[in-house]
């Protein structure tokens, strides 16, 4: 163990590339992840800018179809595997989980660093595949197109995604073990922040689901490279088998992407409403319910694929059940606001925006789970709009909300509150203008993955592209003022929001080993009182 001079924090304890690239500190590794996923987000976003430009006009005039197809594949692969899946867990989860538990680090610091290296190797191989010719299969890699017909770098991309999967698995294992074994004295399961519950549920999905994706993608590479017949009927395979394997992971992966965001929002809502979360146990267990149900609904991606009618019925009814824990969360967050003491700081704007957009995204999921409606809107822009409401409206809003909430903790600096609010509002409106018209387009019948489309879809596509430009600016502004805050921001102090939670009881930025002395917990999570800044708190009722 290196002895740490007292008064130093994790940022100024050592300098130089080595001290970062070989760091075992979960906080530094979180920063490595933050920089990496921001880079991937910009790459994925740039692809979106290009194809939204193409879609400004009905004919395919700016991009030829091959380029367009590679761009939406790039956008999907990068955003899902290299941004959305790692965003909250690997950045905020990595940084905060030990702090919230009152621990010095994650259970396996070396595994944590290894997971970042694996992530980067997988990511760079995938980027290599994209730069040297690209991939045109869509992020779904449907067979036999991907194994026999696509004339692009499918195998290289498969290798990249295969490798990256292991970083998810390692992160998941690390979180599960840390949550079980490293909680501070007095920090019982039902005193844990909901952020921890959400990451626990997410980790279970990562550990159980990711290997199936690895298998599916490996089989694609084997069929494509060696001609082993698994999915291609011409080789005696079954193309629907791939869809089953792929969605067995990729549907739960949706919950990998959204559950941590729900954890973030639970923290923000309680803090800025000055109120203990309403229905703590219901929110906690609804995360687990979503994680479990998430594994039983993959077939709703296949209602028109040729799977049996009975399978369609079963997957439809199971998918409907997901509505219940999702609704429970939304209602409990809303009830938390009731008779609270609500402050409109930047993180709260993102948090409230999240609830609205996630509600709309979740409710449109009901349309897709309803068999006869799905037959019409499957593989149209309705689906595109639906999952962007969950992934971008939900997850990215939560990620940005979390970054703004914990930025003072992570960096020790405050950002410009005015610009923060401005860009939060801009993102909300830009997002809705981009994706709401796509619901209408989808019901009108515009299929996904078309670079050219009939004239009657023109107006709605122009609206969508206009919204995308606003959204793009809304994402760039925080990049600027957050970076500026590192130099010019006010010192934040340990707890600028007067938030509860162990992470706020240590200096900002935290010392290398998080706490000078191990904290002891003797109160429930979110022991806020709405009258904190007005009158004395009422006596504890529990």
């Amino acid at each position, binding site marked *: 163990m290196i002895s740490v001079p007292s008064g130093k924090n994790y940022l100024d304890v050592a300098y130089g590339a080595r001290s970062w690239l070989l760091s075992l500190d979960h906080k530094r590794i979180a920063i490595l992840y933050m920089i990496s996923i921001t880079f991937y987000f910009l790459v994925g976003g740039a692809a979106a800018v290009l194809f939204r430009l193409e879609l400004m006009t009905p004919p395919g005039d700016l991009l030829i179809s091959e380029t367009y197809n590679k761009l939406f594949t790039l956008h999907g692969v990068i955003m899902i595997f290299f941004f959305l899946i790692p965003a909250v867990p690997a950045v905020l989860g990595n940084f905060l989980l030990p702090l919230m538990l009152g621990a010095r680090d994650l259970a396996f610091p070396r595994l944590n660093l290894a997971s970042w290296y694996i992530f980067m190797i997988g990511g760079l191989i995938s980027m290599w595949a994209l730069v040297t010719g690209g991939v045109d299969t869509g992020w779904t890699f449907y067979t036999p197109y991907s194994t026999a017909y696509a004339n692009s770098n499918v195998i290289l991309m498969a290798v990249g995604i295969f490798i990256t999967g292991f970083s998810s698995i390692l992160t998941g294992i690390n979180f599960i073990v840390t949550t079980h074994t490293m909680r501070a004295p007095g920090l019982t399961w039902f005193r844990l922040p909901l952020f921890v519950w959400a990451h626990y549920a997410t980790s279970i999905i990562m550990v159980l689901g990711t290997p199936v994706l690895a298998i599916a993608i490996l089989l694609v590479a084997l069929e494509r490279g060696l001609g082993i017949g698994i999915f291609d009927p011409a080789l005696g395979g079954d193309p629907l088998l791939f869809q089953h394997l792929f969605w067995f992971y990729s549907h739960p992966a949706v919950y990998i992407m959204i559950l941590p965001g729900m954890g973030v929002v639970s923290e923000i809502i309680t803090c800025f409403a000055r109120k203990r979360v309403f229905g703590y146990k219901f929110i906690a267990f609804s995360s687990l319910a979503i994680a479990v149900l998430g594994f039983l609904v993959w077939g709703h991606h296949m209602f028109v694929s040729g799977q049996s009618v009975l399978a369609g019925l079963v997957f439809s009814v199971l998918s409907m059940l997901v509505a219940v824990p999702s609704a429970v969360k939304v209602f409990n967050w809303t009830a938390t606001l009731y008779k609270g003491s609500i402050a409109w700081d930047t993180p709260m704007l993102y948090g409230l925006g999240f609830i609205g957009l996630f509600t709309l995204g979740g409710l449109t999921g009901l349309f897709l789970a309803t068999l006869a409606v799905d037959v019409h809107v499957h593989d149209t822009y309705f689906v595109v709009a639906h999952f962007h409401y969950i992934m971008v409206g939900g997850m990215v809003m939560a990620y940005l909300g979390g970054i703004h909430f914990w930025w003072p903790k992570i960096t020790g600096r405050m950002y410009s509150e005015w610009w923060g609010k401005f860009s939060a509002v801009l993102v909300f409106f830009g997002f809705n203008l981009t994706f709401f018209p796509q619901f209408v387009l989808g019901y009108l019948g515009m299929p996904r993955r*078309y670079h050219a489309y009939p004239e009657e879809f023109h107006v709605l596509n122009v609206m969508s592209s206009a919204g995308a430009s606003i959204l793009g600016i809304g994402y760039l502004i925080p990049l600027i003022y957050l970076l500026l805050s590192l130099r010019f921001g006010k010192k934040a102090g340990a707890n600028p929001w007067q938030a509860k939670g162990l992470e706020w009881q240590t200096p900002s930025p935290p010392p290398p080993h998080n706490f000078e002395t191990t904290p002891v917990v003797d109160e429930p999570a979110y022991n806020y009182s709405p009258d904190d800044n007005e009158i004395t708190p009422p006596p504890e009722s529990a």
Partner: protein
Amino acid sequence: MNTGIQFFPDQASDFALRVDLLYVFLLAVTGFFTLLIAGLILFFAVYYRRRQGRERTAARENMLLEVVWSIVPLVLALSMFSWGAWLFLEMHDAPADAEEINVVGKQWMWKIQHPGGRREINQLHIPVGRAVKLRMISEDVIHSFYVPAFRVKQDVLPGRYTTMWFRPTREGAYHLFCAEYCGASHAQMGGQVIVMSERDYADWLARRSPDQTTGPSGEALFHQFRCHTCHHEGSDARGPSLRGLYGGAVPLDGGGTAVADEDYLRESVYEPQSKVVAGYRPLMPTYHGQIGEEQMLRLIAYIKSLESPSESKSSSEVSQP
């Protein structure tokens, strides 16, 4: 640029109206909850804004509320499921009198065969008011046959048949799209479904431009590939008779039975060794690469038309060549 915005596509089949009705129900329910949540959030955020001097509370649990807001979504979601499932089941069971039309998808076109032998590409002419059933297969990757005006869609797979049906209710020309991403010209893989009056359709079927040959019929293919040399009624036949075969149960070599549906017939021609009929030796060669999917569909239509010997006695004049 046309600046009008539609919210519903054309309604041109009897499913269209029924799917739209269900859709409106979903819009009403989800719209209500969206407005409820958004309204509450805005109201609370403004009314209970800090330093507003409102009554605050620390209430943080209410079992009754939790139960109510679990049960209500559950009941609503299950009613959506039931309505959607009921309609979905009807979309699956084509009426017995449906006009059967064959569809072969390939990168990047739809090839259509009408029962009389007339063929077309990227256009589907059909009569108004009559149920139409499509039997579909792909020659390469997965495609999806999608007619938004009818609210129907079905993936078209390589290696096995899928079917869909609809009953057009309004004459006109409607979009036909490929909805499953299939490569470079995916967006161009489509055309029109043209719904015509019965009389126009009959005329259209009968009309044949000189360059549009129908190709050999299923029966001609049966003889061209010399299927009849083994599959005949004689006691020395090397293969089982195909008369009355369709739809029945076939005993297999090594035990078990197979139902003689379209997929079985297709498989037995392409991979004759995979299901050998009990009592016969595995002598038949594969016809992979010799018979294409379009010819296969015609061949199967011919085999389906072969009636069993007992039935054919009564109608032998019609079915015998």
